[in-house]
């Protein structure tokens, strides 16, 4: 319990590292001689010297309760109530509040103060959590004083198998500082339990995923896109197939949070890529109740179900980014969600013309799901810089590449029907006389990413659930 301040008298909040506080040290000594003065010191209990009543506030509890934003702050109390306050050194203001003992002879008439330690970045949230009302609605989970909070999260089933960041109040408050949306706003109903998910729950899971507060607008945008009925998140969770949500971010938001679209873009090592994708999966797990072996019935799953998120490389002005291709205005940020199995590497180090590379890519893309199936899911093609350069030097833009690949991905049905090529798997016999498209007309999503060296691209197969186009598709949403 902190010591109660006198009902009447002067209080000065100061810190030794503040030049203005040091400047007014003689004034504080003068005021101490003149009447009841309490100095609350934020960083050095020995500062100021020559003052009788100095209270150590290194824990910043008094500064928090007095709502101190800058030091020195001079406050006058009468009858237990604050009746006047001034910030920094201002002779006129100090003498108005404290009389001639505060004249500070020889000092300049005015000098601004310094920021209070209680409002330094990240400190205020910690102080609210410690001394104030955090205003959080989620129930508190006590953890034994000697228990490891990370282990406590594991024991309660809140983890995807990797350690999570324990969701303490101060971390949650910092995370909520990353959005101007209210904590109690419901973002949507999370499958499979269709549980209401508030912005606060998003923040808690974003903390656990390892997000920084500035990722919050992206995380919220990703979640809203995932809840688009056309994305069929429930089905994606429940499927026995490999698939999980793939998150592709376009626009300034991706650059603002430092997402990786270059070297190892689909791999590890970038915090934003890793944690934004993970946050979505933790929300589905924790809020929606989608647990592997429970409603998640994947036969094998894929490593991308921990997290699968990257940004598109938009550095080439000739390239139409994926989000613009899918209807988002240029300059806006957007998320595209795709039902993705794992990454299938595509190697072609011999093609030198767009036509050669198109034929070659079509061979790789035709293997998605099964080389004899055309309803086993769409695909994302991640074009690396070196493969893209072949198209660009040939004068092909995104639309041309899409059109040419669509044509190259047609096959005679007779080659694909049951039993053809000695393989039972395949299309119905009724398709024998038809020319069949591998993917739906807009079913191949092309995105640019990757490091500068390597004639490799990535094929990311989709989910058979996409075969009913009216019911299930990749979705693209603007990030607000």
């Amino acid at each position: 319990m902190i010591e109660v301040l006198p009902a009447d008298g002067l209080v000065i909040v100061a810190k030794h590292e503040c030049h203005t506080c040091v400047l007014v040290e003689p004034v504080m000594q003068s005021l101490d001689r003149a009447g009841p003065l309490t100095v609350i010191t934020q960083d050095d209990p020995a500062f100021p010297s020559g003052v009788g009543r100095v209270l150590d506030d290194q824990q910043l509890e008094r500064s928090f309760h007095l709502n101190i934003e800058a030091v020195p702050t001079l406050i006058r109390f009468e009858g237990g109530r604050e009746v006047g306050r001034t910030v920094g050194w201002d002779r006129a203001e100090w003498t108005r509040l404290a009389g001639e003992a505060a004249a500070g002879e020889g000092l300049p008439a005015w000098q601004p103060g310094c920021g209070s330690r209680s409002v330094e970045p990240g400190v205020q949230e910690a102080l609210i959590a410690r001394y104030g009302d955090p205003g959080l609605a989620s129930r508190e989970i006590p953890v034994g004083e000697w228990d490891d909070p990370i282990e406590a999260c594991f024991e309660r089933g809140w983890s995807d198998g990797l350690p999570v960041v324990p969701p303490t109040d101060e971390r949650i408050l910092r995370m909520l500082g990353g959005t101007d949306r209210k904590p109690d706003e419901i973002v949507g109903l999370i499958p499979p339990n269709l549980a209401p998910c508030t912005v606060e729950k998003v923040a808690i899971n974003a903390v656990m995923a390892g997000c920084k507060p500035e990722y919050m607008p992206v995380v919220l945008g990703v979640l809203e896109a995932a809840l688009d009925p056309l994305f069929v998140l429930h089905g994606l969770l429940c499927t026995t197939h490999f698939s999980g949500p793939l998150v592709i971010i376009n626009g300034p938001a991706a650059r603002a949070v430092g997402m990786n679209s270059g070297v190892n873009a689909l791999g590890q090592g970038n915090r934003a890529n890793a944690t934004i994708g993970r946050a979505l999966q933790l929300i589905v797990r924790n809020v929606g109740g989608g647990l592997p072996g429970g409603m998640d019935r994947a036969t094998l799953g894929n490593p991308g179900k921990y997290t699968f998120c990257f940004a598109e490389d938009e550095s080439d002005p000739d390239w139409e980014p994926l989000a613009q291709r899918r209807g988002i205005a240029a300059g806006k940020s957007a998320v595209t969600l795709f039902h993705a199995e794992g990454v299938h590497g595509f190697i072609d180090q011999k093609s030198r013309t767009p036509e050669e590379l198109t034929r070659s890519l079509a061979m790789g893309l035709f293997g998605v799901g099964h080389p004899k199936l055309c309803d086993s899911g769409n695909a994302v093609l991640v074009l690396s810089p070196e493969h893209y350069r072949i198209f660009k030097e040939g004068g092909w833009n995104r639309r041309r590449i899409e059109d040419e690949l669509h044509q190259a991905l047609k096959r005679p049905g007779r080659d694909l029907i049951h039993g053809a090529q000695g393989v039972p798997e395949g299309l119905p016999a009724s398709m024998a006389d038809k020319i069949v498209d591998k993917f739906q007309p807009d079913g191949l999503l092309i995105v640019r990413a990757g490091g500068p060296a390597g004639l490799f691209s990535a094929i990311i197969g989709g989910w058979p659930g996409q075969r009913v186009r009216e019911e299930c598709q990749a979705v693209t949403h603007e990030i607000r």
Partner: protein
Amino acid sequence: MNQVMTHSSKLRDPTAETSPTRRARLAPPASLDGKVVALMDIGKSRGSEFLDRLEGHFKTAGVATKRYRKPTNTKVAPPAVLQTIAAEAQLAVIALSD
């Protein structure tokens, strides 16, 4: 008190809060038929005596038992012991004190 410890003593629930904060204890089995009961000696004095008597009663009742023992009563059981019990038995009786 160490501040870090204080801070880590309270977390917020990331779930939809449809389950209680404390997990319910497993319901006792309706029957011991076919079950193996682990008899765990934590190393306190006379704990083995207590377990000997219990073992006799279980044997009379036709219930299989297996004996386990912590290396020391001053530390929690090593994971290997707990994993062995979980793999070999369905119920456990622990002789907690002397």
